[in-house]
């Protein structure tokens, strides 16, 4: 999962401070802004063995760029098409907005994304 130093990483910290439960397989790399994610990092993570990559966008909160979310959306799309090209399921990358106090939203996203990845795996195994 990619978070942003100033916004979504705060929400993830808050989830921890509030002792909200989420899977320990969720591991976070914090960066300055989601619009600065290189799509190849995402494909690299999937290739390296991560089941999925979640990109937390800052929604309207980003202090750097007003259209940060739109930019992030574009690079996530790029990552998805790269994944598809390499034969991976594009749904293994997902993007969601997290504000700096969206700890509940973070945990819900993680649970939901975890379930989705589980389903993907099951489908893949069946096929």
């Amino acid at each position, binding site marked *: 999962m990619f978070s942003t130093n100033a916004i979504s990483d*705060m929400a993830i910290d808050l989830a*921890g401070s509030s002792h909200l439960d989420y899977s320990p397989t969720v591991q976070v790399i914090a*960066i300055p*802004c989601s619009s*600065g994610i290189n799509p*190849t990092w995402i494909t690299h*993570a999937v290739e390296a063995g991560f089941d999925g990559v979640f990109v937390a966008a800052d929604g309207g909160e980003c202090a*750097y760029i007003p259209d940060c979310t739109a*930019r992030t959306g574009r690079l996530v799309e790029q990552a998805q098409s790269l994944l598809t090209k390499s034969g991976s399921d594009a749904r293994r990358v997902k993007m969601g907005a997290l504000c700096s*106090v969206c700890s509940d939203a973070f945990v819900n996203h993680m649970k939901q994304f975890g379930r989705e990845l589980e389903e993907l795996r099951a489908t893949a195994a069946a096929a």
Partner: protein
Amino acid sequence: MTEEPPRRIGVMICQCGGNISDYVDTEKVRAEVAKQGDVVATRVEMFACSDSAQESMVQMIREKKLDGVVVCSCSPKLHLSTFRAMTQRGGLNPYEYTQVNIREQCSWAHTHDKPAATEKALRLVRAGVAKTALSTPLERMRVETIPQVLVIGAGIAGLRAALALSDLGISVHLIEKAPEPGGHVARWGRVFPNDKDGRGLIDTLVREVRARENIVLYLGTELTEMSGRIGSFRVKVRTPTAETISLNVGSIVVATGFETYAPKPGELGFGLEGVVTLPELKELLATNPSRLEYHGKAVRSIAYVYCVGSREEGSETNLRTYCSRYCCSATSHIATVITGMDPGIRQFHLFRDIRTYGKYEAIYERALRGGSVFLRFGEEAPPSVTSENGQLVVKVKDRLMAGEEVELRPDLVVLVTGMVPREDGEVARVLKIPIGKDGFFHEIHVKLRPVETVVDGVFIAGAAQGPKNLAESVTSSMAAVSKAAALLLKGYVDLDPMVAEVNPDLCAWCDACTLACPYGAVEKVDHGGTAVARINGILCKGEGACVPVCPKQAVSVKGYTNDQVRSMIDALVQEVA
């Protein structure tokens, strides 16, 4: 024979007095990470941030000739700068330091699964080591600061902030949206705890503000644009004559205050003749301090209903579960003022809990002794306020009478309305400062960085941050002043060196980064005869918008290079024995 590792990294693991070590086997993590290439020294500390632990680490940096440091402890939001400074004291470049968050993002989140928490901690530490192994020394960029501050809002917090900054020799542009300065306090009459006249307090401050040469007060003026960065913001404000003025300031203090909760029509009788809000009663008293009259009729009895608009769910985007802090004390105080005016006026206070905390408890007791009667109602059974032939009827189940219904027929019903955030989000939008769940401006850390926002150089003061009484507003305003002044009086600010850079050997000048950069930080320069992009580090904010758009992958942000991020990813998935 063993090969000398390319890097000499030291790792310090913090137990945080059990906050981490109760869930993460810190010794196991240490032992595992010690096996890692590049790691030459490891230690576990009870409190890594303690002076003694830092001192030991400084010694270790020197003795083991470390060239990189990793501290695994709490969130970098708390102690990144602490350990960067420590690293520097050890003689290293502070950017050869990495903080790994194994508390908020590990031990505290996974308290139910200690082995998994330990495994995750190890993965996170390895990622930290991997990132550090690829770190390079970075130099901060020093830029001059402009010794001027924009203070937004000329209520008590803003006025007081302007004067305090002025005292320190810092010029202030004080803008106020309303045509008059003073905010709520100017309309409030006598205020607790000292019984001072609100209008008088404001008048004194405004007189002083107008007398200062280094304060400019702009009334009816709003902020419209902000650009630039800490130390040098360019802001635009619009005056009542629709004229736009550009200002250049080093810092911004936001003191935009609050709005009073406006009851919905019919909520607790709101809209009926004789039902007023707390601020309306204050204004009533301020207008006629010798006699309590409502629409020309003498008031002989009053029923106050507390917690109107506070401590309830509110809406999803505007949670009002908070206590508005000032209303219990303010209402108790008003009761004493009214008793002082005419002890024969009966006052009934319908409350949920009385929160006249700290020294304001004395005000509550004065109200009690003055004859005010307090009736406690439960959240599940709020009072009802109706009107029968023009006579107000208040019914409440008094918990102190075992829920017996009490019917009052007061001349005046006062809805003790709480504080809500300002509706118009213009300031937040322009300044891009985050807003909390309750709709008020959000500080970085409620205890450790209570007036700072994620936008460096922008501080919050007063009730814009959340409900505060007058004294607390001014206290927080002084805190914001001290942060702004500390920044500006130094004359310079060291900017984070983690900005973007272009590898000129890969760049083919396609202009993509120029288009992506919102700050105009990309310059076209010549590199051995070909045109390439170069980043102006002072203008660059390091957010990295240019990174994904480069078709040649020639751009990266220092500290977040391709190699670093990839190696972190590899470290995270590395097998755990």
